[in-house]
């Protein structure tokens, strides 16, 4: 079988959570957490998935690791349809697809020692004997920059950054081919964030895993990603490479996100584009373009028809640039006339 260049292909992924209530758990409503997301990921590359909280990015990550079962759509990992496999087959894939969680205070069992936590992947997959496992654990600790003495200590004895290192060590224990990083640094101090990001980059360079990097902070994502997908209310609104999204963002939402990145220069002129209003409830998403309730450029059409993710017709040299906006081309031209926008 010829190997596809893509390790992961997600097609029209939907995950709807029912809101239940009443005596017989009647379905009262639906949260459209992820509503038609498609993307593919090449081997060894990193895709950054960005969006504000509640836009469904974590749900995408949990669907890919099969922690949630998608409502519809397909997830193809290495040519295998995830929905079609169970039991032993799923366990084999679980070995290859690992996840780093957001909150290092939550993702480690407080009752297990670090050694026990890191040993668990090997126990579950029946790798090695007790002695070999212990050696593997100390190698893991070394790889993530923790002392070997950490083995017999408990998670609560470590700082947030150190705990996230433990979480990363657990995720890379089985040498996964695909690593889902679900906001791995957003719970950490800014000064620690870069250490953890560099650790992830180093590990990726060493073992060459593919990475889906989920974050709400574009600045963080740019540092680690080859590609960036911007999500809004369960859908991808813009998809392109990491440089283009900074230089020539097309979707008004992306622009707002970029303008929100603080510039470490007090004299720099800021054209901060503050979005008005809140994220609409994903249980009752707006008709038409989902962003129209907050979009400064909306027209009549935006309220009626939803734009699909289309290759953007721009002058930029980006090989792939997709955007879901009716007025993308028109706004791109306008942007040329206003070079002072970031």
């Amino acid at each position, binding site marked *: 079988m010829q190997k596809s260049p893509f390790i992961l292909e997600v097609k029209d992924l939907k995950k709807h959570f029912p809101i239940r209530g009443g005596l017989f758990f009647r379905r009262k409503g639906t949260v459209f957490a992820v509503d038609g997301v498609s993307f593919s990921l090449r081997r060894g590359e990193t895709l950054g998935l960005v969006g504000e909280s509640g836009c469904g990015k974590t749900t995408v990550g*949990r669907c890919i690791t099969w922690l949630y079962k998608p409502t519809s759509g397909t997830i193809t990992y290495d040519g295998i349809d995830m929905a079609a496999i169970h039991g032993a087959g799923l366990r084999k894939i679980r070995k290859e697809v690992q996840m780093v969680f957001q909150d290092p205070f939550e993702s480690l069992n*407080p009752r297990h020692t670090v050694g026990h936590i890191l040993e668990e992947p090997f126990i579950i997959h029946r790798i090695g004997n007790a002695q070999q496992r212990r050696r593997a654990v100390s190698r893991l600790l070394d790889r993530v920059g923790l002392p070997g003495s950490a083995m017999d200590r408990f998670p609560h004895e470590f700082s947030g950054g150190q705990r996230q290192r433990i979480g990363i060590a657990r995720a890379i224990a089985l040498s996964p081919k695909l690593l889902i990083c679900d906001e791995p640094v957003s719970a950490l101090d800014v000064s620690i964030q870069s250490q953890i990001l560099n650790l992830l980059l180093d590990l990726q360079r060493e073992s060459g895993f593919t990475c889906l990097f989920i974050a709400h902070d574009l600045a963080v994502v740019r540092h680690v990603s080859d590609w960036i997908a911007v999500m809004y209310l369960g859908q991808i609104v813009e998809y392109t490479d990491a440089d283009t999204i900074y230089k020539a963002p097309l979707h008004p939402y992306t622009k707002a996100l970029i303008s929100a990145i603080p510039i470490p220069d007090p004299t720099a002129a800021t054209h901060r584009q503050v979005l008005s209003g809140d994220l609409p409830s994903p249980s009752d998403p707006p008709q038409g373009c989902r962003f129209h309730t907050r979009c400064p450029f909306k027209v009549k059409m935006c309220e009626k028809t939803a734009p699909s993710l289309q290759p953007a017709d721009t002058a930029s040299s980006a090989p792939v640039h997709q955007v879901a906006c009716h007025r993308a081309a028109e706004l791109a031209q306008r942007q040329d006339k206003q070079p002072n926008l970031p």
Partner: protein
Amino acid sequence: MVAGEKVLQMIGISPLTAKKIKRFRSIRRGYWSLVVFALLVFLSLFAELLVNNRAIVVSYNGRLYFPTYGNMIPGSVFGLDYEYETNYRQLAKKFRAEQDGNWIVMPPVPYGPYENDLSAGRYPPTPPSFSQKHYLGTDTSGRDVLARLVYGFRTAILFSLALLAITYVTGIIIGCAMGYWGGLFDLLLQRIIEVWSNIPVLYVIIIISSLLVPSFVILLVIMACFGWVSRTWIMRTVTYKEREREYVLAARALGASDLRIVLSHIIPNTVSIIITFVPFSIAEGIIALTSLDYLGFGLPPPTPSWGELLHQGWTNMDAWWIVCSVVVALVLTLTLVTFIGEAIREAFDPKMHTTYE
């Protein structure tokens, strides 16, 4: 203290639990209640050595006899003219009168729980008397009240602990399954439990005991059949909460089996919540058995029981020592248990330990 923590860790207690134990020990009222209560339970397990009509040691013609445990020793062994069980109190008197170098050590309370002490010229119930060694008097059948109290305590506490073990194991398994799998399984079981918990337990027991004499085991089974329900609710809720936490998701993402997740991750992290209910359940068990015995639907006579004593006391108010003894004993026991429960609840309060450093 550091050394102490190391020891606790070695026997498999995490520092989180060690911290809770330390906190519990610092709540002195609860801690001392636990010490006293544990001592009482421990002593009651060896009640035969403390409260018994059999002697602890008999030295007769240079041979030592330990009649407490084992088969009864007929009177002829000690040179008495009968083949039934030796009356050691009389034997003691005889030895003292003879002064042949034979001696006998009696328990501090030399009466058994089933023994009717009907001395001539005295009509039960007799009031407390130190000379007779009936420290709390006798009941309407001439049985020693203290002996009945001690053995009744043992019955009640063993019943309570057995009931606790059965209901908790069942409740934890079922509640955990409901919380873990959720969905239709949870929904159906919830409704079944709601119906089940509306069956009046007392009536069931009354009906059953009118058909057959309820033994310790039968009573235990009936109570356990209805007692597991309340544990299920708590366990279900905490499992629901724990199941969605990231460390459980992480284990699942690693490919851990459901059994592994439940046993290795969920139960160790929920057990501290369950533990806080244990002392109150013990109190409930004691109360349940005592009330059933009081109503006459509990253990068959002449089993020593607090409920039966309470009933005697109530019907013979002029024999004040019966009702006073049992009421004081009940209040004392339940107070101790409640103090322990409060202290555990305070020491295990999750708010005290959820610290984000």
